[in-house]
């Protein structure tokens, strides 16, 4: 292997990969929590609440995620100084807004697919609305949510690359920085172009993470429905 490969690969894996994983982890957790909450609340027959959540879902599913990233990263700070985030945090927040809208829509469907008898039986046992949903309805709905959830995880991991656009150090940005370093004229760089190898490597890295997950989603879809 040529000499330049090892430091490039190490930089991508040691500096870039943790960024990608951090953004993805925050985005997945945040999307799940907010999405399941909103999706469940949407099944309450209270029109203003339903309309509000519907608007949230349609806006953040409708906007290109990059535009949401810009709104969070460039727009919010001009509203108030306390909304100034780093690029990785900004991208995570944008992905939570988008992901939670996806999860909310899926949760609404899953909760509504639970037969009404389940709600009634839980009520008869003395559960209130919160107990009924957290102990009876949601555990059953979550089973149906698992396949779309794994697909969402894949989407979030791939869309974490949007942090690159605002300069967040994740895998793609790490690759881009190394690409620029190698392209620079010696003694700073090598004066060589290795864009194909570097971005190809980044693509392979994402493929190795995503492919098992998309397979898993396909298997879950067959087994759980």
């Amino acid at each position, binding site marked *: 292997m040529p000499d330049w490969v090892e430091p490039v690969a190490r930089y991508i894996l040691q500096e870039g990969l943790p960024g990608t994983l951090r953004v993805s982890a925050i985005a997945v957790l945040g999307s799940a929590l907010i999405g399941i909450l909103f999706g469940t609340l949407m099944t309450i027959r209270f029109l203003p609440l339903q309309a509000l959540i519907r608007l949230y879902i349609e806006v953040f599913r*409708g*906007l290109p995620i990059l535009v949401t990233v810009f709104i969070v990263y*460039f727009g919010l700070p001009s509203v108030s100084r306390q909304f100034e985030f780093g690029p990785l945090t900004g991208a995570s927040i944008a992905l939570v807004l988008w992901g939670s809208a996806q999860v909310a829509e899926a949760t609404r469907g899953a909760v509504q697919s639970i037969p009404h008898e389940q709600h009634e039986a839980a009520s008869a046992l003395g559960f209130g609305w919160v107990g009924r949903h957290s102990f009876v309805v949601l555990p059953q709905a979550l089973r149906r949510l698992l396949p779309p959830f794994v697909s969402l995880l894949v989407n979030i991991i791939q869309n*974490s690359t949007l942090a690159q656009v605002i300069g967040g150090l994740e895998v793609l940005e790490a690759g881009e920085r190394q*690409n620029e370093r190698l392209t620079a004229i010696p003694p700073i760089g090598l004066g060589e172009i290795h864009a194909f190898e570097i971005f190809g490597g980044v*693509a392979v890295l*994402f*493929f190795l993470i995503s492919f098992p997950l998309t397979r898993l989603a396909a298997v879950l879809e067959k087994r759980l429905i």
Partner: protein
Amino acid sequence: MLVATYDLWAFVSENRDELLDGLLNTLKVSGFAIVGAFFIGGVLGAARAHRIPVVSQLTAAYVEVVRNTPILVQIFMIFYALPQFGLVFDQFTVAWLSVMIWGGAFNSENFRAGFQAVSYRYREAAHALGFGPLATFLNITLPIGGRIALPSSINTYISVLKNTSLMYVIGYAELTTTSLNISNLTLQTMESLTVLAVTYLALVWTLSASIRLLESRLALPESR
């Protein structure tokens, strides 16, 4: 210090021509890519549904690669990596080519599912009437399966449209790049973001509404 004022109207009217050009470029790139993705999806989807050897396996590989790598990385590959082999494209070509490749992969899955959903009975009936394989496809599988695949393929086209915003990274002057470049000069960040949000939502919501309309119009008689 600069006093922050919000004047959407001033932003839009002072930069009307640039913004309209940006919107036009967004629509142009999306249009090119959607037409391309339609044909790629139709042909490769048919190959997959009919298990045509070699083409079918190659298509499966193409779909998996596109589905499991970020589109931003795909754009970087086309824009920064291909020139290494003498394949230099201008920004407009990279823009429509990358989203077309992306959309074509997802669309081939939409069409494959649509064609496979066409009942075997119909094809047997066509066969009994003396239709050859091509005539059966064109007269039976395509019209019925195409209708089944239509809603999901429009969803893919909507994603194609949204993904054209990523051409910001290669500096192609579509809507997102144009609007943000203006705000970099004038510091009208909020106005610029409002224009982007409103325009994209208007486009996406219109297309989504058209799905619902088409779904009821084009639903197969037996599923009504």
